[in-house]
């Protein structure tokens, strides 16, 4: 049985089969939640925002014209809702870590990561992404995980593509610096330190 495309599911919903919306929720829930987690950092808040996102998307589905991918449209709603939540929280941005553009060797990080088991690698990467500034974490997630193009991310975040390019370049380097920071104690621990 072939998988229905997003547009086919949307057409079904529009013609009265509202229950088909659960297919879209199942398809995008993890990614929407991840986007919210990257920005909000608190899982409970992120789940609330993710649910709000799907509710809003359902209500305004009639306004989705198919000019962009459904996922892009959905992530844009998630992004706005997360920002609203952040404003409400008026949280102090304590995690703006100023990272020195120190020299590091990407090959070293890659080799060390290869030596670890999968769960440890996942934990380290997620921790490192979590330590990035929110919008950098989101950018990395959208670009690498949901494979959105920079122009699609530009629609989601409302930033020019060139700005995003520079930001992505810096975010990648920051992420590697953070990974290196996290890897060192891990390696010491592995060697019985």
């Amino acid at each position, binding site marked *: 049985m072939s998988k229905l495309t997003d547009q086919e599911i949307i057409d079904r919903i529009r013609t009265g089969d509202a229950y088909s919306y659960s297919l879209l929720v199942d398809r995008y829930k*993890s990614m929407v939640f991840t986007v919210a987690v990257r920005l909000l950092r608190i899982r409970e808040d992120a789940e609330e925002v993710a649910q709000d996102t799907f509710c809003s998307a359902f209500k305004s589905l009639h306004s989705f014209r198919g000019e962009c991918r459904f996922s892009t449209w959905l992530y844009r709603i998630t992004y706005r809702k997360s920002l609203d939540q952040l404003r409400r929280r008026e949280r102090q941005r304590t995690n703006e870590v100023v990272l020195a553009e120190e020299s590091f060797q990407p090959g070293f990080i890659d080799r060390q990561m290869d030596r670890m088991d999968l769960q440890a690698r996942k934990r380290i990467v997620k921790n490192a992404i979590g330590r990035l500034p929110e919008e950098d974490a989101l950018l990395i997630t959208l670009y690498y995980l949901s494979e959105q193009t920079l122009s699609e991310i530009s629609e989601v975040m409302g930033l020019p593509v060139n700005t995003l390019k520079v930001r992505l370049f810096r975010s990648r380097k920051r992420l590697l610096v953070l990974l290196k920071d996290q890897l060192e104690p891990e390696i010491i621990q592995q060697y019985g330190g």
Partner: protein
Amino acid sequence: MEAEENRKIDKIVKKMVMEAGTEEVSEKFTDAVMRRVGLSGVKKHVYSPLISTMSWRIIGVVIAVVFLLLLTGQWELSPSNIHIPYLGQITDWNLSKLYTEMNLKLKDNIGLQPTIWYSLLMLSFFMYIQIILLRRKLR
């Protein structure tokens, strides 16, 4: 040199981020969303068959009876004379035209070759297996 390093960084970051994957929502997430949008839950797809079970049973019994009668030779088909056991002789039916045109050669028994019988048997068997598999898949 710098471009080369950037490509390397891009590759490493991509590999790591993809491997780390997405965050997982709670199990009841979809149900919660569907409730919030006013739909009681995830749709259960119910496939109703075009032909009901009872109809299939009746068709099956009829076919089985016809084959049994034909095989045992109790039902005789001839151009103008059909004898159905327990129902008596039907002589008014005129099948001669049909018999000629379609070149029907049903005699007292069905004289099919063993190969045809094996083929029919195998076909029934495969159809039966397919029905079981399809039913499992649709569930």
